[in-house]
């Protein structure tokens, strides 16, 4: 699905989708005998009620901005990068691996080096899907799904077989010079896990905006996403654009994984499932309609839901999974925006219909539902 044509009503669609998602959550809570007002109150309190909570919420949003930006750029080029989780995982592994392999590097080289290792690993992983799509027409949806699981089991084997000490299921902790957390940040946020990665994430969102709006590559990516045939006819190399978009997408996802390694956990452990930041990043980007500033806000919302959700289950017996039900519902309504638009634009639509019937059919408005036929 292409998310194009931002207009004034898009922000309203996101807000209405959030509202409807919260409403679904409230109904589920009511049906199962919990008090939604109390639970949502505790959620807000748990997410922004103290310096520590704010720190945790911001930390939780940090990787989502990066994976969200990664999803958005691939999506602009017409790719559904479902492989963010795998790309983040290899990025996480390689950033930690770099840090523990060269423990004596000074800070100014260590952190950029580890970040670069993460970004390159993510780019390599998504690049496989980009190349296979560009040269063989292999569906990036299937290839990235398969690469996700390859990444999951591959990184687990590397952690257990090559990195962990003894029989552990986790790597050694990264050296102090590679840490994005600092005593200063811990002090001001009351010992939360907040780290400097947020600045990197915001820089990435600004980079996304600059790339898409101000560069030739960004223009080509959007053009290929909207109409690959026309772009090829106009002399653009669609293969090159496809691969470039996927490489940047994977690099951003890899950086998202590096945030977990260098900031949040400060190591990497054997995982039973793919990291949440992959699918959450996708949701973040869909909710934001691909807009870079929107991605920052929508990642913050996800951070609030995630961290605040923990507080729900501490203060009541409501299962913490309620938060995931809410986020899935929000994305459902974003996807089903035809429904929202139908009510929202009823008046505009009526007006357009009138205008349409006045113009000859050949210039009539194209139905907006033809989107997405090439995503498979």
């Amino acid at each position, binding site marked *: 699905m292409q998310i194009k044509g931002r207009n004034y009503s898009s922000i309203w669609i996101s807000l209405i989708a959030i509202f409807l998602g919260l409403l679904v959550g409230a109904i589920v809570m009511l049906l199962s005998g919990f008090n939604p007002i109390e639970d949502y109150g505790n959620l807000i309190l748990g997410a922004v009620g103290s310096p520590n909570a704010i720190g945790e919420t911001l930390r939780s949003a940090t990787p989502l901005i990066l994976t969200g930006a990664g999803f958005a750029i691939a999506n602009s080029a017409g790719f559904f990068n479902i492989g963010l989780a795998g790309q983040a995982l290899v990025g996480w592994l390689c950033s930690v691996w770099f840090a523990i392999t060269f423990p004596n590097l000074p800070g100014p080289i260590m952190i950029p080096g580890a970040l670069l290792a993460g970004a390159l690993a993510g780019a390599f992983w998504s690049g496989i899907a980009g190349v296979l799509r560009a040269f063989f027409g292999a569906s990036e949806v299937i290839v990235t799904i398969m690469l996700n699981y390859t990444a999951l089991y591959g990184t687990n084997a590397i952690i257990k077989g090559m990195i962990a000490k003894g029989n552990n299921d986790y790597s050694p902790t990264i050296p102090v010079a590679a840490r994005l957390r600092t005593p200063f940040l811990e002090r001001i946020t009351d010992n939360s896990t907040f780290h400097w990665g947020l600045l990197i994430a915001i820089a990435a969102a600004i980079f996304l905006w600059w790339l898409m709006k101000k560069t030739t590559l960004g223009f080509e990516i959007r053009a290929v996403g909207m109409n690959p045939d026309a772009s090829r006819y106009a002399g653009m190399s669609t293969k090159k654009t496809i691969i470039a978009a996927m490489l940047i997408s994977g690099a951003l996802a890899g950086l998202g994984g590096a945030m977990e390694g260098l900031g949040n956990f400060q190591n990497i452990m054997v995982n039973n*499932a793919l990291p949440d930041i992959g699918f959450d990043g996708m949701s973040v980007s869909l909710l934001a309609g691909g807009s870079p500033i929107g991605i920052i806000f929508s990642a913050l919302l996800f951070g609030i839901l995630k961290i605040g959700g923990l507080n729900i289950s501490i203060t009541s017996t409501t*299962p913490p999974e309620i938060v995931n039900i809410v986020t899935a519902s929000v994305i459902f309504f974003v996807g*089903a925006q035809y429904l929202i638009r139908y009510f929202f634009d009823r008046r505009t639509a009526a007006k357009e219909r009138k205008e349409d019937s006045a113009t000859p059919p050949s210039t009539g408005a194209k139905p907006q539902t033809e989107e997405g036929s090439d995503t498979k």
Partner: protein
Amino acid sequence: MNIQTLLMTVISTSLIYSAPLIFTSIGGAFSEHSGIVNVGLEGMMVMGAFASVVFNLAMGNAFGAATPWVGLIVGGLIGMAFSLIHAVATINLRTDHIISGTVLNLMAPALAVYLTRLLFNGRGQTAIIQHPLATVNIPVLSKIPFIGPVLFSSTSPAAWVGIIVSVLSWWILSKTRFGLRLRSVGEHPEAADSVGISVYAYRYAGVLISGFLGGIGGAVMAQSITLNFSVTTIVGQGFMSLAAMIFGKWHPVGAMGAALFFGFAQSLAIVGKYIPVVRAMPDVIFTVAPYIITIIVLVAFIGNARMPAADGSTFIKSK
């Protein structure tokens, strides 16, 4: 271990691991032939697994030996009910099929674990079921010399049912009126509509059948392999089924064949301990093999395959 026992172990384990994929991938084929892309198979499996385990725990004493089989139906029905979300979203609300399927995958584990916590005093996983889908010796067939013991003794009955269902599905899709109409809706909905076939009804049928079979697939997984329900009961089998369907070129029997192959690849990691050459290789090779093979096959052979022409499209009935 002699060759007969070895073959028996490999085949029996392959069938056990294939069975969930067989049902789910055939379900995927029905959905896609009706024109609805279904990346939500994973979510449907989760709901089927959850429902069958809850049923098995609650009604095991009442149904006795029939429990797991009734559990399959219950899992299928809940999977079907859950797939309604996908049907309404893609058919009526014009949602992008991949986004809708992804919502299913996000929603199912959240909802199922939420309900598990409500039903089992806050715990995120259920107890172990007492009436699993056990391996059986198929009467008569297991008496055939050599082939009998290898193929039909201590084998997975669900896998054999799945194989029968795949042939049946092929017959339905290519020989019956219902199947031909279903496919016409996935190939050229406008043409189907113009001759009076209800595109919406057939697309609903395709998605609901995929929900039913996906639910059964999840129920087979839970009742024969994991034996309880938790968030890790279904980890990627739905995506594997999707791959099997594409690998099998949208053909039910092809999908079944691909599912058998994936089951075989997974079983190698387990029975590999008994095979000298295989034993020397690191486990991870077998764990990732199905995924890498899927990519290779996709790149190398899929060129010949053609997905249903209108797969992934939204049909809007003109006035």
